[in-house]
């Protein structure tokens, strides 16, 4: 792989390792920066007002002290995000915005507002939990309207339809570029590793999108011209809850057997960008609502009224068809109930498709050698290793 896009990937990696430094550099250029934890926050409205939305990620350092703020049976992702607030790592943010998410992340947000000094610079947008009804769509548009009014008061200038349309186009462009980046992994010998794509995707969630788009375009052009690597190994796909611990993906691609991480269906990867907001629509908030309803649903908001079906399973089966994994890795946050109830329904599907799987239980700190053993055992099953 030529030095060109290695350098770009390195830039993305640097941003994932120093998100604060990057965000402060944006503020240095006079930009306002707003943090969000749940991806149902419509970033286009913030971006349209000139505010740069950045995702609040966890740091994977043990934080028992958050047990006196958040009950211990909440997921480690909510504890870690709360801990970042309590440790004042994100004090520089001008604003945090949250949409009514699963109750664990709602509590992480509450800790920031009650105990981490974000009382005056925070906004909670009520958002539906059952998305696939006509009333839900109307409720969403009303909620977006309330957020828009708040932001207009916050930046003391109105947000025109053109502002939002421009933001929609920039964000759709990022989504298309990220999709093309992930499409490389469909090849038998992709020119880029799954870990690198995951790193770029994670960085994209904390970056100013126009700058991110330029880097993505340059990277993709470089990769187009790049011949694939030599023989590719076992193709592994990850599906499950938010994973912003790149060590897990690093481990998946550095086992004792050659493996390729070819897809990650998670809210810190595919679920973040695998959709588009319809462009050039008269009602911009209506368009954002339509885009949001078309997303891969988060397990906490995935019930199809009538059948009670989990719509996310349709997407998972489509990704399996397109990316052709040899094995699937189910990741779930310890104590996450919605995810545990989804995994219950994914396993029979994988068994019927004849695709071996294993479960990794994520926590603040992850037992790397145990995970390594589980993953290598999965690969040994796929490669039919026997004495």
């Amino acid at each position: 792989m030529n030095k060109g896009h290695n350098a770009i990937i390195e830039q993305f990696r640097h941003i994932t390792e120093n998100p604060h430094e990057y965000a402060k550099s944006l503020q240095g250029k006079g930009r306002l920066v707003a943090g969000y934890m749940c991806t149902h926050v419509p970033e286009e409205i913030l971006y349209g007002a000139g505010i740069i939305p950045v995702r609040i990620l966890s740091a994977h350092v043990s934080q028992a002290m958050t047990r006196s703020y958040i009950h211990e049976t909440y997921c480690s992702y909510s504890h870690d995000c709360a801990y970042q607030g309590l440790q004042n790592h994100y004090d520089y943010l001008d604003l945090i915005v949250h949409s009514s998410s699963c109750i664990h992340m709602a509590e992480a947000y509450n800790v920031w507002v009650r105990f981490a000094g974000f009382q005056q610079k925070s906004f909670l947008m009520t958002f539906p939990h059952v998305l696939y009804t006509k009333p839900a769509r109307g409720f969403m548009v009303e909620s977006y309207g309330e957020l828009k009014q708040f932001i207009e008061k916050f930046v003391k200038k109105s947000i025109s339809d053109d502002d939002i349309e421009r933001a929609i186009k920039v964000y759709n462009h990022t989504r298309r570029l990220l999709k093309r980046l992930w499409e490389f992994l469909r090849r038998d010998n992709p020119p880029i590793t799954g870990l690198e794509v995951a790193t770029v995707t994670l960085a994209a969630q904390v970056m100013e999108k126009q700058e991110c788009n330029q880097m993505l375009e340059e990277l993709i052009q470089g990769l187009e011209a790049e011949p694939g690597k030599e023989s590719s190994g076992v193709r592994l796909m990850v599906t499950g809850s938010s994973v912003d611990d790149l060590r897990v993906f690093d481990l998946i691609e550095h086992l004792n057997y050659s493996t390729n991480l070819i897809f990650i269906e998670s809210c810190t990867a595919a679920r973040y960008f695998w959709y588009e907001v319809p462009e050039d629509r008269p009602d911009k908030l209506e368009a954002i609502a339509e885009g949001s309803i078309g997303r891969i649903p988060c397990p906490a908001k995935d019930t199809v009224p009538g059948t009670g079906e989990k719509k996310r399973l349709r997407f998972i089966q489509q990704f399996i068809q397109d990316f052709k994994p040899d094995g699937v890795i189910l990741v779930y946050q310890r104590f996450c109930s919605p995810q545990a109830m989804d995994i219950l329904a994914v396993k029979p599907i994988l068994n019927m498709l004849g695709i071996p799987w294993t479960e990794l239980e994520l926590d603040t700190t992850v037992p790397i050698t145990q995970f390594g053993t589980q993953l290598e055992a999965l690969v040994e099953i796929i490669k039919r290793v026997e004495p």
Partner: protein
Amino acid sequence: MSEHASIDEQLDWTKAKVIVAGVDSGAVSSKAVILLDGKPYASSYVRTRTPKESALSAINAALGNTSLKLENIHYLVATGRGRTQVPFAHETITEIACGAAGAVHIWGPSVRTVLDIGGESCKVIHCTEKGRATSFLWNDKCAAGIGRYMETFADLVQKEVTEIGNIALQSDQFPKLSDFCAVYAQSEALDFIRSKVPVEQIIAAYHYAMAKRISILVGRAGLKEDFVIIGGLAKNPGIMHWLESILNVSRLAPQPEWDPALITALGAALFADAFYKRKQSDTYHVQEDQQKRIHHPGSY
């Protein structure tokens, strides 16, 4: 469990064509098995302090005071959680594959489900009649350390860990302890002192609770007969009794000459034997693929 090693004096290693070994560097204990032309020659069981150190002491204990040296071993496969810390291993295979291979080698082709209750983890492995693993389920974090905490519990009741299994069999009437995790069971067991529950009943209750938790994992993974149990905890009669009665399935009888804790190490030795023979006949292409040493992921 106390450390032990044994050697089959009848066999003379100098006459053997193929000398292979398997080292199972487990969390709580490290085991080694040496085969001469496929026949068990020597084995050892030592406590693990750190995997690197204990793997070496395990193989040395197996070599014992014979003139056989580490360098005479043609092929050595390491397995277990600490397998990447065994520098003298030619290759590593996970304890899932080794457990299945070892179990089928000992109990024969009818085995379909292998329950491996080690010191730190508890795994259910499904396999084919040829000893190839087809699926597995690892314990969740709340069921970790059942083996280790059995030893802690033995210390609390001031008895040997090899003793409490038999004591547990003496009573089948006892109040129920929480079977969600070893810490809950231990803390509730301590509180039974308040209501003067006799120690034998507390020990039986603790064994029932741990057996119940393991049975939930086995039920969750699905149990297809024939069913065998390997790993250190298989030597605890209390756990075995309650596990079989809760699952309402009896396991194949344990083989007297094989300590269940050594089966995974035996599996590793069988893999070493097969790989060495294939390497000789050079027909095996996957070879170079598995030679890649493990790389240590980023800093923490």
